[in-house]
């Protein structure tokens, strides 16, 4: 394999210095002269109509500069998610949100907002707004909300009671026949919890509306370009008069701000228009919990049929997801759940049916994994049950059935690479699979167990959503490289990995490459940071732009050197003649003389040479990415305290086929962080609601995401299958870390206790009760 200069190297992240010294700017750090502070009044009811709203007292409070309600803000419908407002036909956009409405549909829904000279004054003013509500009936469970007697949350829906958009159906082969031909069939329903992204920086935006009507928004969005399109629709201002950018750093995302940062951007803009001053909105942590998207909870049913030799023959997968009060990503998420759930194993007969259902809860949207963890905890549990029924080792059963290169599947792009078998082998070795079944002494109260889960994912959203990328590379007059890409860096390392691609293709030194990102004004359209796509898809655009620039450089240099461009190479920002003896073919160019002396010309010299002759090298990359499946196998070892029900995760060995690790340390970091989020999903993280529709787990103190003291040993293992469609062989890795984790952990708990769980997280009380019911 070719040895690269920067690709494949764990170079220090280019943003690390700013972040380690506290000088990196985030939205919450950003301020402008004369800036006001916005605060939002939120609904105390899960479902109510606003009969009357009186803001006069609030407006009189000194320091208050504007009060916004549904009465003085645009009545333009939108969807906060990056994709749905402008979805691809034949799908119809589900637009169900205003900035403010006269009906509130969950506890935390926006009622009004105030801009004032300080946060404290804005908070005081909120208390002076008088609202009369007429309470409406509310429903909190998706199965309940589908019943005819349930209240309509968003009016009549075409596909069924409270079902947003369209149901997703994926047929493969003949599933009825498939089950008829199966020797063993297992069918189980699973209940999934609501998880929260809990990124460290809460939703935030600063909006400035100029006297010329131009709007600038600095915010925490993961997708500046689509966010600009949504703001343009809401405020009726052309795209070209709106600028959306990150400041440039974002304190994590995990999907929570694919599109708008909840409603931080439109509320800040609306207040800024009213107050004629810049307005900053920073969500409190509680607001971030109750009023910004969560992962979808819901119900998933798996029916798996196999032949007696263990060959999977039919799979029926069904999902009913909890959308919450507004659609957000509730049409796409069930699609990904089904598409990924059907694509791990080679099964000739499959059927998927899934949709979301509105309830009077915080909207569910995108969260790392995007439906896939909801598919794989159930599927991997049932696969383990099947192994037991067949009396087969769970690894052997998986090895027998996993997808291979070229196998047919339901996805509209081919499976061109898989390292899943290698992942399974390496993960099994790391965890010590052979110890399984020999971990416990008779009579022990704390029981150990080992379990496995596998899965796949995508490397971007094509062809399910609009998904394309552009990149521009400009060689500066001093030979340094400027790269412009519209993707943000929400912590995943984009602003390092993309320059690595550019440097590799151009032969430039990495320190000569500078990147501008996450700014609609200085970068061409890019859909943004979601769907594990920035390295794979934005990377493909950067490689294309760099290839284009390289071609121009070498053509110019070839002319100058009087050698064909293919006889030139660039390394360490210097141009070399290759494949021929120096001095043979370059008479008259002047380069021979250079060649005789130092044998190279630097990019700096060449760029300036070109500049003096009125030329600049500008590479453009405009691509629609392919797509590719990353693969992964997680192995978990757990200890279950049978007297209290506590599950302690001891170790997770996470083997991932990442195609090619462009920056291995960054890739490991993605996996390790994903794994821990998956551990939380499996054992402790959930948002439940009380009977009045209020979140019980609405703060970091009440929402049990893992601290460092809860962290198991994590062994991130990289497997490289070299994906043909990816830049330098790379595939997506941002989301995969938590796709199979809960399945592996639940299977390990079964191995330890013999008790199967159909609901996560495996909290103390849930596990304790199940153990008691099973004779412990």
């Amino acid at each position, binding site marked *: 394999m070719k040895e690269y200069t920067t690709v494949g190297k764990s170079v*220090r992240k280019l943003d690390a210095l*700013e972040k380690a*010294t*506290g000088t990196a700017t985030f939205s919450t750090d950003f301020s402008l002269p004369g800036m006001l502070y916005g605060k939002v009044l939120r609904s105390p009811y899960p479902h109510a109509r606003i009969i009357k709203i009186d803001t006069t007292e609030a407006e009189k409070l000194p320091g208050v500069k504007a009060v916004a309600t549904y009465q003085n803000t645009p009545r333009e419908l939108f969807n906060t998610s990056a994709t749905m407002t402008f979805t691809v036909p034949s799908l119809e956009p589900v637009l169900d949100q205003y900035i403010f409405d006269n009906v509130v549909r969950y506890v935390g829904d926006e009622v009004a907002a105030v801009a004032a000279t300080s946060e404290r004054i804005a908070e005081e003013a909120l208390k002076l707004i008088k609202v009369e509500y007429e309470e409406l009936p509310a429903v909190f469970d998706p199965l309940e909300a589908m019943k005819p007697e349930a209240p309509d949350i968003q009016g009549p829906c075409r596909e069924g009671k409270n079902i947003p958009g369209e149901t997703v159906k994926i047929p493969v082969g003949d599933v009825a026949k498939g089950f008829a031909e199966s020797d063993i069939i297992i069918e189980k329903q699973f209940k999934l919890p609501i998880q929260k992204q809990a*990124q*460290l920086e809460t939703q935030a935006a600063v909006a400035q509306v100029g006297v010329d009507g131009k709007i600038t928004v600095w915010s925490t969005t993961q997708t500046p370009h689509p966010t600009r399109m949504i703001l343009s629709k809401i405020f009726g201002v052309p795209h070209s008069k709106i600028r959306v950018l990150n400041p440039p750093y974002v304190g994590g995302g995990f999907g929570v701000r694919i599109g708008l940062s909840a409603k931080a951007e439109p509320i800040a803009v609306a207040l800024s228009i009213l107050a004629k001053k810049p307005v900053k909105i920073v969500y409190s942590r509680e607001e971030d919990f109750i009023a910004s998207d969560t992962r979808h909870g819901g119900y998933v049913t798996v029916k798996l049929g196999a032949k007696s030799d263990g060959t999977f023959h039919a799979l029926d997968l069904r999902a009913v997801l909890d959308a919450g009060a507004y659609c957000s990503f509730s049409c796409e998420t069930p699609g990904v759940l089904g598409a990924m759930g059907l694509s791990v194993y080679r099964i000739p007969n499959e059927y998927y049916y899934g949709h979301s259902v509105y309830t009077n809860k915080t909207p569910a949207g995108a969260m790392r994994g995007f439906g896939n963890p909801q598919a794989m905890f159930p599927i991997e549990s049932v696969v383990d049950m099947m192994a037991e029924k067949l009396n087969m080792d769970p690894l052997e059963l998986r090895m027998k059935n996993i997808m291979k290169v070229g196998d047919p599947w339901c996805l509209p792009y081919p499976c061109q690479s898989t390292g899943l078998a290698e992942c399974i082998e390496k993960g099994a070795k790391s965890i010590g699979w052979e110890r399984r079944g020999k971990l416990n002494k008779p009579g022990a109260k704390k029981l150990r167990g080992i379990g496995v889960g596998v899965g796949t994912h995508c490397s971007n959203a094509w062809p399910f959503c609009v998904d394309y990328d552009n990149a521009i590379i400009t060689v500066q007059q001093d030979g340094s490289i400027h790269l412009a890409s519209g993707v943000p860096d*929400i912590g995943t390392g984009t602003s390092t990995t993309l320059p690595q691609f550019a440097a590799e293709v151009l032969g430039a030194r990495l320190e000569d490459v500078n990147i501008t990102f996450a700014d609609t004004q200085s970068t061409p359209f890019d859909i943004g940071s979601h769907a594990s796509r920035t390295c794979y898809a934005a990377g493909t655009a950067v490689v294309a732009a760099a290839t284009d620039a390289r071609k121009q450089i070498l053509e110019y240099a070839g002319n100058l050197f009087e050698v064909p461009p293919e006889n030139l190479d660039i390394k360490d920002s210097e141009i070399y003649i290759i494949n021929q003896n120096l001095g043979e073919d370059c008479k008259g160019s002047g380069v021979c003389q250079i060649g005789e002396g130092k044998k190279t010309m630097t990019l700096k010299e060449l760029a300036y040479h070109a500049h003096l002759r009125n030329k600049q090298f500008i590479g453009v990359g405009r691509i629609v990415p392919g797509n590719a499946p990353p693969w992964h196998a997680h192995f978990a070892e757990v200890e279950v305290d049978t007297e209290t029900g506590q599950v302690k995760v001891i170790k997770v060995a996470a083997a991932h086929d990442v195609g090619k690790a462009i920056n291995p340390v960054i890739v490991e970091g993605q996996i390790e962080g994903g794994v821990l989020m998956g551990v939380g999903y499996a054992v402790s993280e959930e948002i439940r609601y009380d009977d009045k529709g209020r979140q019980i787990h609405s703060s970091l103190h009440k929402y049990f995401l893992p601290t460092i003291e809860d962290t198991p040993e994590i062994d991130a293992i990289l497997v490289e299958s070299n994906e043909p469609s990816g830049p330098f062989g790379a595939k997506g890795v941002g989301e995969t870390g938590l796709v199979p984790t809960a399945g592996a952990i639940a299977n390990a708990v079964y191995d330890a206790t013999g008790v199967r769980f159909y609901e996560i997280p495996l909290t103390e009380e849930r596990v304790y009760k199940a153990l008691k019911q099973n004779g412990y």
Partner: protein
Amino acid sequence: MSNTILSFTLNGEFTEVQVSPSDMLVDVLRDKLHLTGTKKGCGKGECGACTVIMNGEAVNSCMVPAMKAEGSKVETIEGIGSPDKLHPLQVSFMDNGAIQCGFCTPGMIMSAKALIDKKAEPSKEEIQEALSGNICRCTGYVKIEKAVSDAAKQIRENL
């Protein structure tokens, strides 16, 4: 609101700033002294992003009334190193890939510094205890723990 002058040593320099008795230290640092390296992730002591060192101990600056800083020594991320002379923890965080989104990083580094200022050779358990109040949602803490342990080693070897 009655304002008063708070005097304290901030990153080694005598500092005076006008505060209200109800101000919290984090807001004085960020809004009045413009030291935005100290982050605010919850305002309730639940995430550790605002961790600073006060008289040698790591504290949540969102839980400390600014007045408690009177006469004290406060260190923030801005005070522990500069690009030409970085603190070994800063170098170690960068080199170990312990930084992703970076929002927890200043608080993490301050918690870690309070630990290794006192313990030259911290155990795994001591590192975990020192960072137990610092939530990171990106890294799974693996590389952060290693970065702290490496930095401590680095400091020991250079003494």
